[in-house]
């Protein structure tokens, strides 16, 4: 299971059913990368995470979630 999960698919549908291709063009990656992101098969760079969040007018932590607890 990926450590970083995301809700890109839900956010796309919440934004007038934005297509993967449209999102890919807006954030400057290929559609295959958006598919891999949604499937949890790719962990994006910090810069790409920010660009995706801005494409949805959200904060990074609203789009990406890191649920692994920090070791004390």
């Amino acid at each position, binding site marked *: 299971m*990926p450590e970083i999960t995301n809700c890109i698919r839900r956010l796309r549908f919440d934004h007038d059913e934005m297509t993967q291709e449209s999102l890919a063009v807006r954030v*400057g*990656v*290929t559609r*295959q*990368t958006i598919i*891999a992101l949604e499937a*949890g*098969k*790719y*962990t*994006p*760079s*910090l*810069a*790409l995470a920010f660009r995706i969040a801005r494409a949805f007018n959200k904060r990074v932590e609203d789009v990406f979630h890191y649920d692994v607890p920090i070791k004390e």
Partner: protein
Amino acid sequence: MMNAEQKRAWLGVVTGIACVVGYVALIPFLGPMAATGAFGLYGINGIAPLIGRKEHADERDRSIARQATLGGAMASYMAFIFGCMGTWFVAFAWHGQEQVSVHLVATITFVGGIVFYSVRSVVVLVLYGRHVGADNA
């Protein structure tokens, strides 16, 4: 739909297999030394940069290419070192020879190159099919 990197990787895998098949097929006719000419087929990979050169590569593609190149370089280095040192072991320990053919140098170097491109191609295909983390995150 495959992207340019995957197409180049498949070209590497197919030509690698063609070289080995050609080599094995030519041995009965030409002998093991002359049959190594079959590996010249690997030169077809020279057209790889022409495949999808106008295609846009994003950070995931670059990350996969970097990791595959590293994997290919590691495998190539191992093959080269094992080939060089293994030659002495086989010659001295098994056959009691104090000299080896100069052809072995070229062969081992060539095998190192083949291993690099073949392993890199396989790693590219594997990484596109599984979880990959951005190494510039």
